[in-house]
């Protein structure tokens, strides 16, 4: 943007002269013989000044191009952390074989778990349900602003609306792969289980090939190196390390011919530790400082008005926008290993119903219906959460933008508002996760060598609650806590296990395959899991 402000250098000219008493239209300024005009032009040397962009100038221009309308609309529709199911809670790792006759079970399960669309709202996995890039009022305000800018810069062509339309379909994918190490030990009737995963967790933004082609058609393609750099620096988050540890202890409860059950308790110990961060991507929580960045419209205008520094203006704007993308990635992609450091405790109940009790046939003796139910309570812990501010429109209404005396304060307000729209506040808060109810039922066939299981799995987690926000009293009333409030999550999964037991004189080796797929979900993404079990019983 070029600024053409001319200023008289030899004589001070007051720009705020009232027109009331001067009879402004009583002479022709184009008249070469007009003494009045000639004197004035003779005694003043006019120059176009580029550097002295005043706050009033900037406010005027922002108002003129309709930026005020856009600044009053929230860019973030929600700021909560997306619901995910911890690896320890996947049905693939439920151990309820009958190990009573064994002393030790040591095993590892190699697993791959993929969520193709993490849910942004109870029933949607498109990012337009998290960011306001598909909202009609935002698009209208943006369209108006672009039109105004194009009036000033006719060659300015950037298809924001079309891009928003395409980016609105973007999803967040998650992949987890690694090994779940398990040890089971029976002490008479008491069974102790230890589980800890070592795994790689990756999250990335995802667009279909058609969407990517559409973007390339709109803005042109970039080199593969540029794309790879953009993905690593801003679009992928990954890490590798240990997850939380689960310790389980259960005892026989009912032991009848037709029904037996076990009652137990498990604890989730927050042992998660990241060994390597940012292998294919980046770690955004460490990359993005929690402080709000500083953005100066004055700098942008000053750089932009001078052809020799225009690139600096573009670089500053791009740096700001990439920073905003990183803040978004810190919220959506940078999910730690484990369960955010929350200690959990849960009672659980296992029931086994032999089919032979109902069907008196020899083949029925190998069949059982096994179920497992648990209700886990996770203890509160301090976490970093993100908030946008509320009441922005009211603050705009309360300000007098035409008062030159308030111009500096008004510009500072506009700059802060602009930053806050794209950079939600990062605030430490005590998070009370919701209760997790988990039920798992399956029909099992345990033959001498071959066994299989088919079952359903139900997972329900109530929404979390925040308390003790570590924020100043001045800021607290403006935080929009409603948009941070998540929702409950439900998953219904069907799964199947196939296993082959190799009997040896001193031990048994079990090799198995597990497949699971979510068939119904609410508030949490749909995932599928493949796991390969290798287990030694001795």
């Amino acid at each position, binding site marked *: 943007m*070029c600024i*053409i402000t*001319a200023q008289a250098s030899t004589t001070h000219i007051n*720009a705020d002269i009232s027109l009331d008493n001067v009879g402004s*239209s009583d002479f022709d300024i184009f008249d070469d*013989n007009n003494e009045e*005009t000639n004197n004035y032009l003779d005694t003043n040397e*006019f*120059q176009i000044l580029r550097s002295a962009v005043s706050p009033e100038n900037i406010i005027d*221009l922002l108002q003129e191009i309709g930026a005020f309308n856009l600044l009053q609309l929230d860019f973030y529709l929600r700021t909560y952390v997306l619901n995910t199911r911890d690896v320890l809670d996947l049905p693939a790792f439920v151990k309820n074989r009958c190990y009573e006759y064994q002393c030790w079970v040591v095993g590892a399960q190699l697993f791959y778990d993929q969520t193709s669309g993490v849910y942004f709202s109870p029933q949607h996995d498109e990012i337009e349900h998290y960011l306001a890039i598909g909202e009609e009022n935002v698009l209208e305000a943006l369209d108006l602003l672009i039109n105004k800018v194009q009036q000033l810069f006719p060659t300015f062509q950037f298809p924001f609306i079309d891009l928003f339309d395409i980016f609105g379909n973007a999803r967040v994918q998650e992949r987890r792969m690694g090994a779940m190490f398990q040890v089971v030990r029976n002490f008479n009737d008491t069974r102790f289980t230890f589980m800890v995963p070592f795994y790689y967790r990756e999250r990335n933004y995802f667009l279909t090939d058609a969407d990517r082609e559409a973007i390339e058609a709109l803005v042109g393609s970039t080199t593969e190196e540029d794309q790879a750099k953009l993905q690593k620096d801003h679009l992928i988050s990954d890490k590798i390390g240990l997850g939380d540890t689960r310790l389980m202890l259960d005892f026989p409860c009912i032991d009848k011919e037709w029904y037996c059950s076990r009652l137990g308790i498990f604890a989730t110990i927050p042992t998660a530790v990241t060994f390597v961060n940012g292998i294919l991507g980046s770690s955004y929580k460490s990359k993005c400082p929690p402080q709000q960045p500083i953005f100066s419209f004055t700098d942008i205008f000053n750089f932009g008005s001078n052809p020799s520094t225009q690139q600096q203006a573009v670089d500053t704007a791009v740096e700001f926008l990439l920073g905003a993308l990183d803040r978004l990635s810190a919220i959506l992609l940078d999910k730690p290993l484990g369960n955010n450091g929350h200690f959990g405790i849960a009672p659980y109940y296992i029931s086994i119903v032999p089919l032979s009790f109902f069907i008196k046939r020899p083949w029925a003796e190998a069949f059982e219906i096994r179920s497992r139910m648990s209700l886990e309570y996770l203890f509160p812990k301090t976490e970093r959460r993100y908030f946008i501010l509320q009441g922005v429109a009211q603050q705009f209404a309360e300000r007098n933008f035409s008062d030159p005396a308030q111009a500096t304060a008004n510009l500072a307000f506009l700059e802060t508002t602009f930053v806050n729209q794209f950079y939600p506040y990062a605030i430490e808060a005590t998070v009370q996760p919701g209760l997790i109810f988990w039920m798992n039922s399956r029909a099992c066939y345990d033959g001498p060598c071959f066994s299989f299981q088919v079952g359903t799995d139900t997972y329900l987690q109530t929404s979390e609650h925040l308390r003790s926000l570590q924020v100043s009293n001045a800021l607290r009333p403006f935080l929009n806590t409603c948009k941070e409030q998540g929702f409950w999550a439900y998953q219904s999964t069907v799964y199947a296990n196939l296993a082959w037991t190799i009997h040896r004189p001193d031990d048994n080796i079990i090799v198995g395959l597990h497949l699971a797929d979510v068939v119904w979900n609410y508030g949490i993404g749909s995932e599928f899991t493949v796991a390969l079990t290798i287990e030694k019983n001795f």
Partner: protein
Amino acid sequence: MKKQIIITLLIISTSTWLECKVKEEHKFKLKSPIIGMLDGKALGISPRVVGLMLQVRREVRKMLYGVPVPTSDSCIGTYEFHGQKHSVLSLAKLESELNARFFAHENTMMQDSIAHTPQEWEIIQKKYEKQKTELKKELVHIKEEFKKTTKSYVEGARGFKQQMLILINESCELRNKKDCFLLTWSEAEEGRETEQLDNKMNTFEAFAEFLTDLTHFLEDLVNSCDKAREQFMAEVHHNKAKDK
């Protein structure tokens, strides 16, 4: 015969166009939305920008027509050429007359029954070339002066090129001058405007037309910016009141 008609038409047309009299032209109002967005704005066309445009316009008109003689419609040129005061317009007329005279002379010689020697042709050619060179030298000098006069305006408008181009386009369209050099000049890459002027502006006639288009554009622009113009006029009044 055909050539004679062309020469006659040339003399008549250029003489009419280059009449060395200051004419008050009709000023147009530009309708581009850019005007609404910039008019009266400190970051757009402020009274100070109006002042600068009027200063440039006045200086360009001085070059074009000369200095106005008080209580008269006429002007006195500011450039001395062959002992006489000239303006760009009168020099353009001189240039045009020189061309016309040369072509007429050449034509007469060709139609003469007596065959002219190569030396005679050479003398006429050399005399014509000498006068042309003198005029060109003067043109180079005046162009340098023009560059100095418009330097602050051209430099100030850098980065504002897109907007200026739209406004110049509209002004030229309203005045039915779609292929004028003003557009070529303003379309030049930033910082290379003077190169365009040096390379493509080689006759007084073209230069006079360019200066005329420039003053027309500045007038149209000032005339279109009602708020900035009113503010400028208020400042002029204020300045006068202060002097009193």
